[in-house]
């Protein structure tokens, strides 16, 4: 099977999966939800019949299947419905937050990948040494604490106690940029955004890097016992040559498939991190929408987040197809 055919196949599969997921979310939400227009009836002085007219206006008095098709049609046009709480289209609301999430997730993703694989190879190759033991302990201890707790510690330590203790560096706590950044030059603005990104990213990256290295380490250890490594050793290759020529490549393959899977966890982590660090991303938006019972927004945000996850998965699969031709035929 050719590469293009493989990519097409994965694409179709991803689309179908996405379609089913979206349908599921729609029905879960529409069968179980209350009336999204209730926000209008929050005011006790409104006449009773007004929500009816509003319902008509948003097509909510249609039967469910009809609403579903309207929803699908709108979705294809990139319209995720109307947020009754925010008073504007869901897409617009999400559009305001998505860049920040993409920035946070994207940079975490890249750093995780690179550092994780490197660190994983290092500790796997020094298996049983002090480096390895330290790593295993660090991984387990760090992951044993809930992510938000680490975040809370970071905020208190780097945002507050550093200031109290008169450290020269302390980190900003609120939002993703300085409110006065309009006065800055472009380079200063970029620096400002990075400065605000630093702490949430660090928390996310530490757990991510540890997780990836853990996986890479496991794979490399498995690979190390394979016969071809023993053969290579018998041929008299140096350990480093073995690592890079044989071990590394073969251990990398399953890691790449796990990229896609890790996106879901990363997004979950980013939700926590965004809420701890007041970072204005889509995860925080989803959480707030949930607490405010803004059903359409919840549905929309979830659809977008699930889409991101699926996209990650798709990219990983295509990447895997590039690297390992066997996969294409499977």
């Amino acid at each position, binding site marked *: 099977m050719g590469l293009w055919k493989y990519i097409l196949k994965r694409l179709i599969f991803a689309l179908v999966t996405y379609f089913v997921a979206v349908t599921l979310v729609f029905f879960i939400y529409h069968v179980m939800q209350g009336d999204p227009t209730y*926000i*209008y*009836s*929050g*005011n*006790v*002085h*409104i*006449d*009773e019949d*007004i929500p009816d*007219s*509003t319902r008509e206006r948003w097509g909510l008095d249609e039967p469910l299947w009809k609403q579903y098709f309207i929803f699908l049609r709108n979705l294809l046009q990139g319209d995720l419905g109307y947020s009754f*709480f*925010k*008073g*504007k289209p869901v897409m*617009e*609301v999400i559009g*305001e*937050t998505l860049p920040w999430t993409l920035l946070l997730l994207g940079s975490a993703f890249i750093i995780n990948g690179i550092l994780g694989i490197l660190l994983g190879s290092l500790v796997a190759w020094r298996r049983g040494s002090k480096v390895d033991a330290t790593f295993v302990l660090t991984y387990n201890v760090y992951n044993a604490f809930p992510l938000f707790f680490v975040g809370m510690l970071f*905020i*208190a330590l780097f*945002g*507050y106690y550093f*200031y*109290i203790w*008169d450290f*020269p*560096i*302390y980190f*900003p*706590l*609120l*939002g*993703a*940029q*300085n*409110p*006065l950044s*309009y*006065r*800055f030059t472009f380079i*200063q603005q970029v*620096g*400002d955004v990075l*400065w605000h990104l630093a702490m949430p990213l660090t928390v996310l990256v530490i757990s991510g890097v540890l997780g990836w290295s853990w996986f890479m380490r496991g794979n490399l250890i498995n690979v190390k016992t394979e016969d071809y490594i023993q053969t290579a050793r018998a041929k008299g290759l140096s350990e480093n040559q073995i690592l890079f020529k044989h071990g590394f490549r073969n251990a990398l393959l399953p890691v790449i498939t796990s990229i896609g899977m890790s996106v879901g966890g990363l997004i979950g982590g980013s939700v926590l991190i965004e*809420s*701890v660090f*007041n970072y*204005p*991303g889509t995860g*925080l*938006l989803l959480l*707030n929408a949930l*607490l*405010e*019972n803004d059903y359409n927004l919840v549905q929309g945000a979830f659809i977008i987040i699930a889409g991101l996850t699926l996209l990650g998965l798709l990219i990983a699969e295509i990447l895997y197809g590039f690297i390992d031709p066997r996969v294409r035929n499977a």
Partner: protein
Amino acid sequence: MIKLNRKILVSMTIVLAFSMMVSLVPTSIMAQEPIYGGTLYTPMGSDIDTLNLFTQGTTYSSYILSHIYDSLVQYDVDNVPQPVICSAWEDDVTGEIWTFTLREGIVWHDGTPFTADDVMFTWNLLLNDDTIPRRSWIFDWIDGFTKIDETHVSVDFSYAPGFSDVMIDFATQWIVPEHIWDSVDVLTFTNDAAIGCGPFKLAEYEPAQFFRFEAHTEYHLDGPYLAEKVVQIVRETEAGYYALSTGGLDVLGGAPPDLVDVAMVDPAIEKHEWLQDYWMYLGLNQRIYPMNIKEFRQAVLYGTNRSEIVDVARYGRGLTCPASCSLPYGDYYNPDVKEYDFNVALANSMLDDLGFLDSIGDDGIREDANGTDLAFEIMVSAEAQESVDTASLVQGYMADIGIDITIKPVLFDVLWHEVGGDGSQLYDYEWCLLGWVGFWSDIHPNWASWLFNANGNWGGDGKNIPGWSGDPRADVTDLCEQIFLTNDEDEKKDLLNQIQVIVAEDLPYLPLNILGGVTLYRVDEFDGWVMGSTTGPDNWESWLNIQLLEPESSPGFLALGAFLTVVVVVGLVRKRRR
């Protein structure tokens, strides 16, 4: 390693030296002439829903929009209406027609002059479109508006509303510019530019991050002296506290007392303690036995240590609420009503007298005549930590007088629905914790005549919360009717006093406490805060009056600091790589 340390040391010295240079600028004594300029940072707990003032539904939106829009009158920190867009008001003999005189020289943020037509447009919009969520009930009782001339407009009510009704429900309605709103769909307009005539222009809105306002230089009243005001969205007050300490915020409310003590160590931070027009009550569903027994309700109130609730659940901020459900500092407070001081012995003996004895088993829980345990469920709003805290305290007090309480925290919407607050008529609760907020919290005669009237909109069994169905109901209804009929303020007050006595005796609500708060604010950069007994430093009048103590520091400081730190970090990383 030694080299590494030296590098850190050098970098630190540079940064320290720089920050010291900045901090050592001498504080100037406050000048007579107000100093213009400066950026004030204030926090807000959550993002707004929308900038459309007709569909917005949260206090956060109201707060943001109150920077941008002005109304005819505005209540000041002492709850007295002050003319803002109008300069004067008067009513005719019947009290049905009210005329407002508008100020001249008001300008919208986009430079368009403000006219009486804008006022007429806004009013007619609200009068004609009853689908607008933020429309006040009073528009249902308006016959029409008249534009007398360019500076005079009048309203024709279909009855003679009281002064406070007109002020609170009508004159505080924000006025919108006709040239923007006449061509849009009021319900879906997002109003991103938000052109108003208030003291601040909306310069920048980053969702979930901050609002940046610039001063409206052509504002018709004095001020604002600030050049900019930034409203930061701070989800966790703890983070807000960190920001306040590090200078990222100038004002912060909601910090607990211990934290306030910690903060007060910093000479740059001051505190202001105030009360909130909000009283919490314990709602006992009087449709259910034995909550329909007056003595039972009294015993419960006697058995509740309300001052301890204030001390513990409210961090010592606030007051115990009088049994008559009025604010002790309000205009209509009647001090001569029955009070229920904490008295466990009395509560126990009252319950004994009622025949509720712990006869079955020795479990410490009383039973009624049928042998059913006095066990109730108290429904509280899960979002409000104070409510849950209060409920768990009540649980403890009730255990001391032999009543078994289970706490059921639910989302506020659910609570409101179950108790029938949204008109669901469910009344599916035993006990609940709710409160009256803002204007509703003080017993104004007109309001009381609605609230306690058995035949009234709110007094009827269908709407009253928690449902007062005791015997004195007829008397109170009678008094309510009399209040409604009279126009004499003294007579109204007298009648209200009578109602208060009955309410305090019969306890349709079991009032617990009036909420209070403390606000921390920084005094190292700004002065001119306006404080009231019921609000802190972050109020509309403060925004007009706050001014700089000194010329503001260089805006490049932060960026420079950031730059320096980046240099240090990069240096460190490079060092380590080698």
